[in-house]
C-alpha cells in the first residue's frame, strides 16, 4: 500500500452547515470556493501524453510540482531532460478519469500543449493552450481556446496538426444542453463536440465549430489527420435513446459541419460514465482501425476492430477480464495495440501486434508496475512502435515494441 490514508477524512465546516439545514445557500457559496482537482504537488497526477517530432525527439506533457510541464528525450525515452514549465502560475488541471494534458508538434519544431482547467462548479472547465516556438525553452502565456466563456463543460481536450500546419483542438461542450435547460425544453441527450482551428501556429484560434451533438460526456476524443487537411474525430456518442457506441466525423479547416457516422455497433444501452475513450489510426490502404471499450452484453470489454460503413470488420476482444485503456497506432499495415491489465498485485502493460492490418496478432508483455499508472500510449516512429506509460515507480517509462 503506497499511500493509504488510514485516518478518517474530516470534512470542513461545509457539511456541518448543510446538516444545519442550509444546503442551497452553501451550495451557491461552494460554486466559487470549490477547490479544484489535481492540485497535489507532492504526488503529481500521472496523466501524461507524448509525441515524437520530425527529428525523432520524444516530447512528453505531464504534471510536475503542480505545474503542466514538458520533458524532452533524445533517446526514445531512455533518459529525459529536466521538465520545463508550460504554465508559470499554478493552475488547477483536470487530470481525473480520461482527462490528461495533450502534446502535439508542428513540422517546424513548434510544441503545442492543451489541458482542461476545472472551473468552480462540478463538471465545468475551460480548454487551455500554450505553445513554445523555441524548442521548449519558453512557453506562451496560457489562453482559453474557445470563444464561449460560460462556466459550463468544456472538457476532454484533444489536439492534432494537419499537413498544412493548421492546429485543431476539439473538446466536449455542454452549451447546447445548458441552452436547452434554460429554454425549459426536453433534457438534452449527452453533450456536444466542438472544435477550433488555428492558422497561425496557435497565436489565435477561430471557432467554435460544432462537430456533432449528443456525444457522451466523459471520454477522451480520438483524432487522426487526413491527407486532405481534414482531421477525423472518433468519440463515444449517445445514440437515441441512450446507446453509448462510437461516432466518427470529419473536422474541416473551414469549420463546415460534416456527416456524423456511427462506427461501432455493440448496442451498449446505459446512462453511465465509462471514462474510457477510443483510439483511432489509419493504415497504408486507407482503412481505419480503432480500439474502444464497451460493456454491451454481446461484446463486453476492450475491443479492436477495422471500421467500415455500417459495420466493423475483424472485431475482437483485447486482453483479459481486467484489460482497460487500450491505445493504438499504425505504421504502414502494421498495427500495434497496448493496454494495461491488473493481475491482483501489479498492473501489467501488454501489447498485441499485427503485421497484416489486423488479420493475425501476436501478444507481448512489456512491463509491470506495483503501483499507480496512467493509461498507456502507443507511438509510431520511423516504422517502429514505442509504448509510453507514466507510472509512479518509473515516470515517463517508454518501451520499444518490436
Amino acid at each position, binding site marked *: 500500500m503506497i499511500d493509504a490514508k488510514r485516518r478518517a477524512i474530516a470534512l470542513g465546516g461545509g457539511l456541518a452547515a448543510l446538516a444545519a439545514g442550509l444546503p442551497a445557500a452553501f451550495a451557491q457559496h461552494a460554486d466559487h470556493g470549490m477547490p479544484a*482537482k489535481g492540485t497535489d504537488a507532492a504526488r503529481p497526477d500521472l496523466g501524461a501524453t507524448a509525441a515524437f517530432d520530425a527529428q525523432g525527439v520524444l516530447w512528453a506533457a505531464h504534471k510536475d510540482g503542480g505545474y503542466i510541464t514538458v520533458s524532452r528525450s533524445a533517446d526514445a525515452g531512455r533518459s529525459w531532460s529536466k521538465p520545463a514549465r508550460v504554465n508559470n502560475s499554478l493552475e488547477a488541471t483536470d487530470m481525473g478519469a480520461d482527462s490528461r494534458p495533450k502534446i502535439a508538434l508542428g513540422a517546424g519544431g513548434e510544441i503545442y500543449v492543451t489541458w482542461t482547467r476545472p472551473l468552480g462548479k462540478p463538471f465545468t472547465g475551460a480548454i487551455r493552450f500554450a505553445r513554445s516556438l523555441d524548442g521548449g525553452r519558453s512557453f506562451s502565456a496560457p489562453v482559453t481556446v474557445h470563444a464561449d466563456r460560460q462556466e459550463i463543460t468544456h472538457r476532454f481536450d484533444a489536439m492534432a496538426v494537419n499537413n498544412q500546419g493548421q492546429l485543431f483542438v476539439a473538446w466536449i461542450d455542454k452549451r447546447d444542453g445548458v441552452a436547452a435547460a434554460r429554454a425549459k425544453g426536453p433534457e438534452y441527450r449527452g453533450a456536444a463536440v466542438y472544435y477550433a482551428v488555428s492558422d497561425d501556429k496557435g497565436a489565435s484560434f477561430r471557432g467554435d465549430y460544432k462537430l456533432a451533438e449528443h456525444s457522451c460526456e466523459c471520454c477522451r476524443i480520438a483524432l487522426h489527420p487526413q491527407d486532405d487537411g481534414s482531421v477525423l474525430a472518433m468519440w463515444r456518442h449517445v445514440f437515441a435513446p441512450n446507446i453509448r457506441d462510437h461516432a466518427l466525423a470529419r473536422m474541416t479547416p473551414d469549420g463546415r459541419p460534416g456527416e456524423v457516422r456511427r462506427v461501432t455497433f455493440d448496442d451498449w444501452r446505459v446512462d453511465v460514465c465509462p471514462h474510457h475513450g477510443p483510439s483511432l489510426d489509419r493504415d497504408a490502404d486507407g482503412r481505419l482501425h480503432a480500439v474502444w471499450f464497451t460493456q454491451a452484453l454481446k461484446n463486453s470489454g476492450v475491443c479492436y476492430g477495422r471500421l467500415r460503413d455500417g459495420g466493423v470488420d475483424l472485431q475482437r476482444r483485447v486482453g483479459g*477480464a481486467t484489460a482497460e485503456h487500450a491505445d493504438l497506432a499504425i505504421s504502414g499495415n502494421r498495427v500495434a495495440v497496448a493496454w494495461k491489465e491488473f493481475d491482483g498485485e501489479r498492473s501489467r502493460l501488454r501489447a498485441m501486434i499485427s503485421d497484416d492490418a489486423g488479420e493475425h496478432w501476436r501478444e507481448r508483455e512489456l512491463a509491470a508496475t506495483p503501483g499507480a499508472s496512467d493509461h498507456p500510449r502507443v507511438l509510431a516512429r520511423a516504422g517502429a512502435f514505442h509504448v509510453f506509460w507514466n507510472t509512479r515507480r518509473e515516470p515517463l517509462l517508454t518501451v520499444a515494441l518490436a
Partner: protein
Amino acid sequence: MRTLCKFAGAALALLLAGGAAADPVNIRPFDAGSMSAIRAQYAGKPFVLAFWSTTCEPCRKEMTLWRGLKLRYPQMPIVLVSADGPADQAAVTAFLMRYNPGPVQHWMFADEFSERVRYSVDKSWRGEMPRTYFFDAAHDAAAHSGLLDRRMVEQWFRNNTGRH
C-alpha cells in the same frame, strides 16, 4: 439547477424534521481492505454499495435517488464510495454539499492505485460509474453499471426490507 437546489433543501429539511440519525460529517478512507470491512459490518443484513465520482454526470442524478430512498427506508444501509483519488477530497466534499445524497455512509478511494481498490471490490469492474452493488442478507450481490431504474431499485428495497 436552481430548482434542484431548492428541492435538495426541502428534502433535507424533511430528513432533519424526521430526526434521521446519520453522520454526514465523515468520509472514510476506502482501500483494498475496506470491502471486507463493510461486508463484516453488515453481516447477515442487506445493504447497497454505490460507487460514484465527481466527473460522472449520471452519478449526480443518482444522489437524489439515494436521498429519497433513505427517507423511505431509513433502516437500509446505503454506502456511497467516491472513486476519486486521495487528492480530490475537497472536490468530493463540494460535490456532496451540492448534490446532497442524504444521511448515507460516505467513503472515498484512499489509494491512488485505483485498479487495486476496484479489484478488491469486483474483478470485472473496469471503472465505469455509477457502479452499484445490491447485497441481500446472504450477501449475494447484484452488480449494475449506469444510472439505476428507480422502480427496480424501489422493488429491491421493498423486497429486502419487508416494508411496502
